[in-house]
C-alpha cells in the first residue's frame, strides 16, 4: 500500500467538502491513524482470492416491462430546497 500520507484537503475537494483549518488538522491525524491501521492488509497473502463485491450470489432480476405509476412531479418536488413551477431551481452551472 502507498506510503504517502493522505492529503485531506485535496481529497475533501474531490468529495465536495470544505474543511476548516481545524478540521483539516484533526482529520489528517485521525485518518492517518486509520490508514496506518488498515495497512495491516498489506502483510496478508491474498493468494488468488476473487474480489468480493456482493455478500450474496448476484444475478439479474427481471420484471415485466409494464407501465407503473411513478411518484409524480408534486411528490418529487415536495422536499425541494428551491423550485420554480414544476422544476427544481438549481445554481447556475453554465457561464
Amino acid at each position: 500500500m502507498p506510503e504517502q500520507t493522505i492529503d485531506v484537503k485535496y481529497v475533501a475537494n474531490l468529495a465536495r467538502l470544505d474543511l476548516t483549518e481545524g478540521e483539516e488538522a484533526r482529520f489528517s491525524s485521525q485518518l492517518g491513524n486509520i490508514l496506518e491501521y488498515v495497512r495491516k492488509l498489506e502483510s496478508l497473502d491474498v493468494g488468488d482470492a476473487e474480489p468480493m463485491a456482493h455478500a450474496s450470489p448476484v444475478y439479474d432480476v427481471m420484471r415485466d416491462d409494464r407501465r407503473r405509476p411513478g411518484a409524480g412531479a408534486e411528490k418529487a418536488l415536495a422536499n425541494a430546497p428551491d423550485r420554480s413551477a414544476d422544476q427544481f431551481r438549481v445554481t447556475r452551472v453554465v457561464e
Partner: protein
Amino acid sequence: MSRSAAKLTIAELQRDLRAKRRSPREAVADVLQAIDSRDGTVRGYLSTDAETALAEAEKADVSLPLGGIPVAIKDLINVAGHPCGCASKFLDGAYTSTYDASVIARLRDAGAIPLGRTNMDEFAMGSSTENSGVQVTRNPWDTGRIPGGSSGGSAAVVANDTAVAALGSDTGGSIRQPAALCGCVGLKPSYGRVSRYGLVAFASSLDQIGPMTKTSEDAALLLGAIAGADPLDSTCLDEAVPDYTRSLTGDLAGLRVGLPAEYFGEGIDAEVRSLVEAAIGELESLGAGVVEVSLPHTEYAVATYYIIATAEASANLARFDGVRYGRRAAEPADILDHYRRSRSAGFGDEVKRRIILGTYVLSSGYHDAYYVRAQKVRSLIREDFSRAFEQADVLVSPTSPTPAFEIGENVDDPLQMYLADIFTIAANLAGICGASTPCGFAAGGGEAGLPVGLQVLGPAFAEGAVLRVTDAYEKATGWHQRRPGTASADGGGAS
C-alpha cells in the same frame, strides 16, 4: 387495566388485543404515555406523531399478524408523511418522506402501527449514537453511558419500555451492539433477507434492516412480517420466508455450537468473558454440543470493513447535494460552492471523515491497493465462515468486547470506536445473520449493573437456527426480562 402496553412484548400485547382485554388505541396511548414520562432523560426518540398513530390504531385489525402493534422506527427508514432525517443536520427539519419503505408497507400490511422516529448515529455511522447531529441518547441502565450504535435510539426505547418493539439497521453491528449494551434482543438478518427499498443507504453491500425486541419470539414475529423478496429491491433474494416462531423449540438437542478461537482472545472485558462462558455452559445444558472453530482472518475484518464501508458511503452520500432535498447553502457563488457549503454545513465530523476516507480509497492510484485488496480479503473472511459452518450450526461469541462505555470516552479516537465492532463486523462482510441477546450484567453504572450481550451467528438464511438458540437461552435464564430501574431515567426535564 393491568400493566402498561409499553411494558409488554409483541406476543403478550397480541394476546391482549385479540382477547379484547385492551384496544389498539389504548395500547398506542400507553406507549405515548410511557414516552412522555420516561423518555425525557434517555431521549431515544427524535419525534412522535401521536395524532396519526392514534388514528391508525382506531382502524387497526387485530386479526392480522401484527394487528395493532406499535413499532418504533429508526430515523433512516422512510415512513410516508413523517420526517426522515438520519439524525443529520443536512435533513433534520428539511425532509418529509413522500413514500413508505418496503418494510413499513409490510408492517402496515401486517397491521402494525409505526410510532416514533428513533435517534441514531448520523447516517448510521458510529457505535455510540454520539454522532447524532440532533441529540444525545443515554443508556437507560446508566444515563452517563452510551446506548451503543448506530441504532442506539431503537435499543434504548425497547430496553426502557417506551416501545413494544423497534426496527433498526445493521451495517457492521448497528443492531446487535446497541441491543447488547442496552439489554434487549437484536437480529441482523442475512444479506438479501429484508428489502432495503426506502432505507437511506450507508454501505449497500452490507446494510440490513432488522428487529430490536424484548424477546427472540418477538424478533421472529417481526422478521416474519418484513422479510421476503421485493420487486423494488433487486438485492433482496427470492427465498421463502418460513414461520420463524416454529423454530423456537426451547431445546438445543443435537445442535453444534462453534466457538471461534479468535473471538475469545485478548481485549475482552473480564466480566464479559466470564458471562459469555457461563452462557456457553447454559447452551450445553440445553443439549448443545460445543466445538472450537477458527476464523483465521478475524484480525483483518475491521480494516477490511472500514475500506469497503467508507468507499460505498462516499458514493451513496454523493446524493446529498442540496439540489433535490435537504439543506442548501444560501446564495452560492457557483455550483461547486453550492455543493461544498451545503454538504459541509450539513454533515458532522464522522460523516465527513468517512466520506474523505472512502473517496481516498477509491481514488485513482489507490483503488487497487486499498479497495480491491479489501474485497479480496472479504472473500477470505467469507470462506472462513463457510468452513466454520461445516463444523458448527451456529457460532457464539460476545457481541461487544466491553459493556457500555461513558459518554464522551471515545469521541476523539475514531479508531478506538471502530474496534468496538470487532465481533459484529465480519457477519456483514460475509452476508450471514446474527443476533444478540442479554446474558447477564457486569458491574458498573447503578446497582443493577450494565447489560452484556451474547452473539449467535448463523449461516446465510439460517435466522431460524439463530433464533432457536437465543430463544431457548432466554427461556432458560430470564436475563432478557430485567429492566432498568426507572429512578435515574425519570428526570423528565431534559426535553
